[in-house]
C-alpha cells in the first residue's frame, strides 16, 4: 500500500507491524491512523530489537509522522504575539527555551516561556526556576537576586512538566542563563564573566547567571 502524500485525521496510513507511529498519528486496532492534517513523512528508523517474534535480523521499520505547518518565526501574527502567530506547541522535557523573568521569590524565580526550540509560542507558558536549578555547582550558595532580575531574557531547558501551572526550567549549564539584561539605569548590559554583567556607560557590574555566548 502506498502512503498518501497528504493525510487528514482518521486516514489509514498502515499497519503497526510495517511502520512505527510518530508524531501526529495514533494507533487504533493495530493500524496507524493520522490524527492531524498534513503531509505524511516516513523516515527510516531502526525497529527496537526487543521484537523476538520475528527472526533475529533487525529490519528497518519506517517511522510515520505528520508534520505541522511550517511556522514563520518572523511573522508574529497580525496583532503581535499571542494573536495567531506562532505554533500550537507545548513545552516538553529537554526543550531549550527562551523566556523572560517575571517574578523573583525566595526559593524560585518565575519566568514566562516565549520560545520553545526555534518556534515562537502562541501563548506564553508559566515557568519556574528553582534556586537549586540555577547553576550546577555550589548549589547551596546560590542567591536568586544575584542570578536574575525581573525582565531578564534567559535561555534554559525544561526539566519537568511541573505542577498544575508551572513548567520547571533549569539554567544549570554553561550555555544557559541570562542572555539579555538591563542595568538599573535601563541600559543594555554586556556579560563579562559567567556571573557578571556590566553597564557600558557607568561601568557598574551586576550579578547575573550569564549564559555563555556562542
Amino acid at each position, binding site marked *: 500500500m502506498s502512503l498518501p502524500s*497528504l493525510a487528514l485525521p482518521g486516514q489509514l496510513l498502515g499497519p503497526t507491524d510495517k511502520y512505527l507511529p510518530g508524531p501526529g498519528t495514533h494507533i487504533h486496532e493495530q493500524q496507524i491512523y493520522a490524527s492531524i492534517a498534513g503531509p505524511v513523512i516516513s523516515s527510516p528508523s531502526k525497529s527496537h530489537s526487543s521484537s523476538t517474534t520475528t527472526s533475529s535480523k533487525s529490519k528497518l521499520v519506517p517511522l510515520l509522522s505528520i508534520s505541522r505547518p511550517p511556522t514563520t518565526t518572523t511573522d508574529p501574527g497580525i496583532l503581535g504575539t499571542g494573536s495567531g502567530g506562532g505554533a500550537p506547541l507545548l513545552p516538553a522535557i529537554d526543550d531549550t527555551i527562551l523566556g523572560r523573568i517575571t517574578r523573583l521569590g525566595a526559593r524560585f524565580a518565575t519566568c514566562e516561556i516565549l520560545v520553545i526550540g526555534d518556534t515562537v509560542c502562541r*501563548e506564553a507558558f508559566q515557568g519556574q526556576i528553582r534556586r537549586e536549578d540555577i547553576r550546577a555547582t555550589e548549589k547551596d550558595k546560590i542567591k536568586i537576586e544575584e542570578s536574575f532580575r525581573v525582565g531578564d531574557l534567559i535561555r534554559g531547558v525544561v526539566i519537568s512538566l511541573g505542577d498544575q501551572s508551572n513548567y520547571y526550567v533549569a539554567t544549570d549549564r554553561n550555555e544557559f542563563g541570562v542572555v539579555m539584561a538591563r542595568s538599573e539605569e535601563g541600559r543594555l548590559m554586556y556579560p563579562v564573566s559567567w556571573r557578571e554583567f556590566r553597564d557600558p556607560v557607568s561601568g557598574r557590574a551586576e550579578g547575573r547567571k550569564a549564559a555563555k555566548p556562542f
Partner: protein
Amino acid sequence: MNTDRRRNNAPPGGTSAPVFARTIREPGYLQSLRPRRSRGPNELRRIFLQPSIIPSASGSAYLEIPTSSTPSTSTLVPPTSSLKITASVQGPKPLPRSAPFSPSLLLTTTVKFAPFATRNRRGYIRDTTERDLGVHLETALRGVIIGERWPKSGVEVVVTILEGDEDGWWGDSASEGSANGSGWGLLNVLAGCITVASAAITDAGIDCVDVITGGVAAITRNPDSRDQKDLARLLDPCPAEHKEIVAACAVAYLASRDEITEIWMKGDIGADPDALIEGATHAAVGSLAVVKDVLLEALQAKFQGQLEVKESGVKRKAGDVDMTG
C-alpha cells in the same frame, strides 16, 4: 429575568416578516409561495465551506448552506432560510493559574446565535437553547479529540450562527400560530455546528481520531396524499419546505470508525429509530465528502513549498490522494 443592561436593547418580540396586501386579498396566493423540496429524498443541500478565515484564531472555518429554492419574483421574502455558521478555535493554550491540574485538554464550547440570526431577534446573552446546543456540540467533539496529547491546556471552540435554519415556513407561523414550531431547525443548526467546528479543529492542528461531521434525517408527512399514514424519510430536511415534520434526528458521525458521538432525536420516531439514525449518518457522510475535499485543498495550498521539495526528490505522489466520502 436576565436582560442585557449594558446596551440599548431592541424591542422585545422581535421583527416580523412584512405582510403584503396581496396575501390577504387572495387566499390562495400565500400558499402558492410555499417552497417545495426540489431535490431527491437522499440529496443534500449544497455546502460551502472555507477554513482559516479568522487570522487571529488558531483555527477557524465558515460554513454556508445556501437556500436551495430559487427566489420568487413576486415577493421580497426569501422562501427558505439559509444556514451560515462560523467557528473559531482558540488554543490550545495554558490553563489559567487558578485552574486545577488537568492531564488532558479541557474543551470549552460556546454556541451563540447572532442577534439577527433568526426571524425572531435573539438577545446578546446566551439563552437556554444556545447553552443546550453548546453541550451537544461539546459531547460530539469530546469523542473525537485526543485530549491526552495536550496536558495542562485548554481549548475554546466558539461557534457563531449568523443565520439559522427556521423551524418552519414563515407563512405557516403567521397563519396557524405554532403549527409545527418545535425546534426542527435546531437539529440542522447542530449538525452544521458539528461540521464547521470539526473543520476548524482540523485547521487548528489539534489531534483528532477522525474528521467528525453532522447529519440530519427526518420523517415527514406527505402533504399530497390523502392517507395520514403516508410518511416519507429524507435526508437533510429544510424545515420550511415541509408542512409537517413527524420526527427528526441529528447525529455526529465518525465515518472511518463507524462511530456516533452524539445523537439528538425529536418527535414521533415510530417503531424503527435505527433507520432514522442510519439516514442521519448517510447525511453526515455526504457532508464529510465536502469537508475532506475542502481541507485537502487548504492543505495543498498551505504545504505547497514543502511538498514541491519533497516531490522533486522522490516520485510524484499527488495522484493517490484518497477522497472517498
